[in-house]
């Protein structure tokens, strides 16, 4: 750490603080940063490096680790289960996030009206994203049940065929996406609403006077204020779906036939069920790298959009 090298950011208090610095001042600044970064290094960097090391060994808990170099990675890349898990993870991410963004924008406009009771409606809509994904998955599993589930009952009531949710490879994946959309569309809606709140009212009034079409209004007036919140929503949602674990784990356990098994679930299985720690570490590193690539692309997109909106560098 480089506390000694600190310079005053602003005039006034910082210079006054510099003046009061001395021996106690140095200790004070160390106290501000050293414990936090010490703990974070210990909890983040050390495990990550350790895990990179483990991924180079054939190591099952209870046996002696054997150096295999890139062997785990080679095995992984020739394992059809790995490619299936990668495909499933990407499918979930693309399907869930795109539906969430479209519905999130629509619901954002619906929630942007003003009338009595809107406070309660908003609270209800924002509730799902605050709940534990595991609990959400649990009660959706109850609702998706083949025999007594409410979802199939309602479908047949409106004349549609019952769907083998959670049993059929295709519909099980749809179910996971449905649950994610139910829980996380509110998050996109929340950010869209925040963006809509920054649109200047005089712009809207002018557009109404000019009888601008709805599409023109959206494109010309709302969009500039929605771009940043939407990119932010896209960033958070993509990352969270790429590491998705809880809801497919509880809904289907990764089945049927691993068709809802995400990369996180595959890694967990190697670790906890097969005790194949080296392989689990290798898979988890793939998740880290994919998320890093996606994050970097999205952050590049965000950076020009946020100029003048948020001052801290992402």
């Amino acid at each position, binding site marked *: 750490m480089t506390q000694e090298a600190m310079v005053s950011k602003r005039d006034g208090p910082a210079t006054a603080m510099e003046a*009061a610095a001395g021996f106690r001042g140095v200790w004070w600044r160390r106290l501000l940063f050293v414990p936090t970064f010490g703990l974070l290094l210990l909890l983040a960097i050390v495990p990550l490096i350790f895990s990179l090391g483990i991924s180079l060994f054939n190591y099952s808990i209870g046996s002696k680790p054997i150096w295999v170099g890139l062997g785990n990675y080679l095995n992984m890349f020739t394992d059809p289960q790995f490619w299936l898990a990668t495909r499933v993870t990407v499918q979930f991410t693309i399907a869930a996030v795109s539906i969430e963004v479209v519905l999130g924008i629509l619901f954002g406009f619906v929630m942007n009206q003003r009338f009595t009771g809107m406070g309660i409606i908003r609270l209800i809509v924002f509730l799902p994203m605050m709940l534990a994904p595991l609990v959400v998955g649990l009660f959706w599993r109850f609702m998706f049940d083949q025999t007594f589930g409410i979802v199939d009952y309602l479908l047949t009531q409106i004349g549609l065929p019952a769907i083998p949710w959670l049993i059929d490879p295709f519909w099980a994946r749809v179910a996971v996406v449905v649950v994610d959309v139910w829980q996380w569309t509110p998050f996109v809606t*929340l950010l869209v609403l925040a963006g809509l709140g920054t649109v200047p009212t005089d712009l809207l009034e002018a557009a109404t006077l000019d009888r601008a079409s709805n599409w023109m209004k959206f494109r010309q007036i709302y969009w500039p204020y929605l771009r940043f919140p939407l990119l932010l929503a896209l960033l*958070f949602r993509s990352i969270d779906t790429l590491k998705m674990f809880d809801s497919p784990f509880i809904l289907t356990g990764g089945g049927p036939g691993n068709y809802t098994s995400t990369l996180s679930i595959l890694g967990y299985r190697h670790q906890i069920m097969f005790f194949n720690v080296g392989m689990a570490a290798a898979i988890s590193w793939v998740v880290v790298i994919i998320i890093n690539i996606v994050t970097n692309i999205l952050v590049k997109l965000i950076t020009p959009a946020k100029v003048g909106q948020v001052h801290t560098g992402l």
Partner: protein
Amino acid sequence: MKILKRVLGVVLALFVAAMFLFPLLWVVLASFKTKLELLAVPPVFIFQPTLQNYINAFNSDFPMQVRNSLIIAISSTVISIILGSLTAYGFSRYAIKGSDFLQFWILSLRMLPAIAVVVPFYLVFRMLGLLDTHIALILVYCLFNISFAVWVLKGFFDEIPLELEEAAMLDGYSPPQVFLRVALPLARSGLATTAVFCLIQSLNEFLLAVSLTTRVAETAPVGLSKVQTLMGVDWGLLSAASVLFMLPIVIFTIIVRNELVRGMSFGRMK
């Protein structure tokens, strides 16, 4: 025409709310049903409510799991708020070398997938004999809570006018005194908001909890995940336990409803 549009808007809003509310209502309803009513085809909407599921939940491992969840979540939150407020204040008031880099690094911890740290933590805690203890999860949750707290609290500290701290300096307060007696009290609503979000995140976490605990320190989501028993799935007990577990989260959400944007977007949007 204008009235028609207005009514349509209200109806749409109610429809959206109903879509999000229905699954929650259904699980609340299920928690008051008997075994027969739970598995009835077609599903029953009107029935004589029973408290049996709640009694069963209280007589199961569930209260112990909730206790574990609370111990872990509260401890991790307290540590994270203390360390997070110090560092957030530091970033807000002092320019340090590499400040942007360090802040970005903290933000990137939000992107870190839990699965990436599961393997090393499992091995280390196994070696230290800390598997299935509260300490293990408290420490691991600090990783996510501290990084969250630093970012969100920095936003709150940035909003405090510097003049107040300058005045305190002139009165002879030392920098630590300014922090403790001026900045912290002014940021108390921000501290409360951040703490509530840390609590919610810790209570809801599952992957690390299921990997690092087996029985003694099992948290509520881990307990709920073990749905398959020899007797099949006891949906009544699970619904009752889910409702009990969601209740505090609903109350927390009501408390922080005005700061949801900040809390959910890591303080990137206000």
